[in-house]
């Protein structure tokens, strides 16, 4: 017997949390992908 407003707020909460999860995982992804690149295609070795 959950009211519609309750469901809406639950959806909003999950959306926020999962979006934040995605944001937090991006650098990990970057590191992972870069580790597979050859020296030629990866980021130039800046100072």
């Amino acid at each position, binding site marked *: 017997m959950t009211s519609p407003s309750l469901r809406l707020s639950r959806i909003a909460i*999950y959306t926020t949390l999962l979006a*934040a999860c995605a944001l*937090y995982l991006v650098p990990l992804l*970057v*590191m992972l992908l*870069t580790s597979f690149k050859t020296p030629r295609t990866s*980021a130039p070795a800046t*100072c």
Partner: protein
Amino acid sequence: MTTAIAQRRASPLDALQRWLPKLVLAPSMLIVLVGFYGYILWTFILSFTNSSFMPSYKWVGLAQYARLMDNDRWWVASKNLLVFGGLFIAISLAVGVLLAVLLDQRIRREGFIRTVYLYPMALSMIVTGTAWKWLLNPGLGLDKLLRDWGWEGFRFDWLVDPDRVVYCLVIAAVWQASGFVMALFLAGLRGVDSSIVRAAQVDGASLPVIYLRIVLPSLRPVFFSALMILAHIAIKSFDLVAAMTAGGPGYASDLPAMFMYSFTFSRGQMGMGSASAILMLGAILAILVPYLYSELRGKRHD
């Protein structure tokens, strides 16, 4: 008669028992005295000398401090610390509290989501700095990705913009530390008596009001713990800057810790480096001492 004899017999062992804790602690105390306070004292002394590459003991009074005040790079570094520190602490607290409050709502897979937010804390600042350097690299990171996806006009060159580079540091540091703030607050929230929330619901308050006016105010000790830890991370942030921008472009993203290192060891200005270190210590003490004083005073009144 027998009691007197018993006392005398126990005496040598007794003395050893009294001295044993002190003996055990003595080496650590010695190391702390010498390695910690001793070196602080030495740095303090050096800041009044004209040391360059090697320590010298020619007294110059406050000359090094005067040179420091005249040094533009020092002012940039100090200003950066305030901006970086302020933003980093404020945003980390806000993000951490928000995530903790959301996670407190009986979420499924809470353990997994919590781990995702917390894992950055496990990385060293060097790794964090490097990863974000790639990510924010104009022409190679986020910049290139979004343009490849079609958003032609997008530019994200903050990393090489002297006015904006500090914000890049903030982003990386917040990414690393906000998970920790979240963990602190989640633990605090879990300790809140659930009947208080129910009482507030019966009284007619909605959940956001309950959190803002009742639950979070009761977590003031957690705020202070988080604040202390974040503040000390901010002041110590040497590795993040070194990995991400190396103080660049130019010295636009320099921080006092980095300034001190490069002047003392790379540039051979040990006197000025020591002066800057002492000023950093002074800043920390200025925050820490009043806080400790208020905490200890409060406890005695209880």
